[in-house]
């Protein structure tokens, strides 16, 4: 299990490749990556603020919950903070499990919890100014399915 909270860009392909190469006994690897959308050209950058210290603890707690609930061979979470350009990867999760249902469920669970329970705040910088991204009711509701 690896958790990285960093301002540096990460190499999605290299991470997925290394993750899949290192798992033993897993038949299924799922990855998710969140990219900065350009919102039809309206977005020039995204700034991500976080709470150093709490962020790592919160993510570790979410990963532990997933590991208790599903049969996971491994899990990886990388989340960036700072300034990102459209098209850049904000974060990724990867999960490995003997079978696909567990790998998919754990990846979706990690995403749902990272959305609403890890202390990150996104600000969109556009031509018209900057605006904090509002949390969606749908994201909070998504937690209820687990």
């Amino acid at each position, binding site marked *: 299990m690896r958790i990285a909270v960093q301002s540096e860009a990460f190499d999605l392909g290299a991470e997925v490749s290394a993750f899949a190469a290192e798992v033993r006994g897993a038949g299924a690897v799922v990855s998710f990556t*969140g990219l900065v959308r350009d919102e039809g050209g309206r977005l020039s950058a995204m700034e991500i603020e976080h*709470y150093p210290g*709490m962020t790592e*603890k919160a993510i570790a707690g979410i990963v532990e919950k997933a590991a208790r609930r599903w049969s996971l061979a491994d899990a990886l979470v990388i989340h960036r903070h700072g300034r990102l350009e459209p098209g850049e990867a904000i974060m990724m999760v990867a999960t490995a499990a003997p079978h696909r249902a567990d790998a998919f469920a754990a990846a979706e669970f990690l995403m749902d919890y990272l959305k*609403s329970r*890890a*202390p*990150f*705040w996104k600000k969109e910088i556009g031509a018209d100014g900057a605006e*904090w991204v509002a949390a969606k009711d749908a994201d909070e509701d998504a937690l209820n399915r687990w």
Partner: protein
Amino acid sequence: MEVLYFAWVRERIGLPRERVETQAATVAELVEELRAREDRYAAAFADLTALRVALDQELANFDAPLAGVREVAFFPPMTGG
């Protein structure tokens, strides 16, 4: 105790963290003290349903006790992922 602000709470209050001397027994009491300080605090804490609080880096409720707490953080709902 250390009080931290993030995202628009930080922007509205105008600083990321400060040391606060308080006898407040709960988060809600601390919020009342801060609100009474200045307009910018009153503005930041106007609607508690739009805010979240963490005590020593764990999410908590506004009625949680502050006894033994060293770090309180106020912020809007998180938007990670």
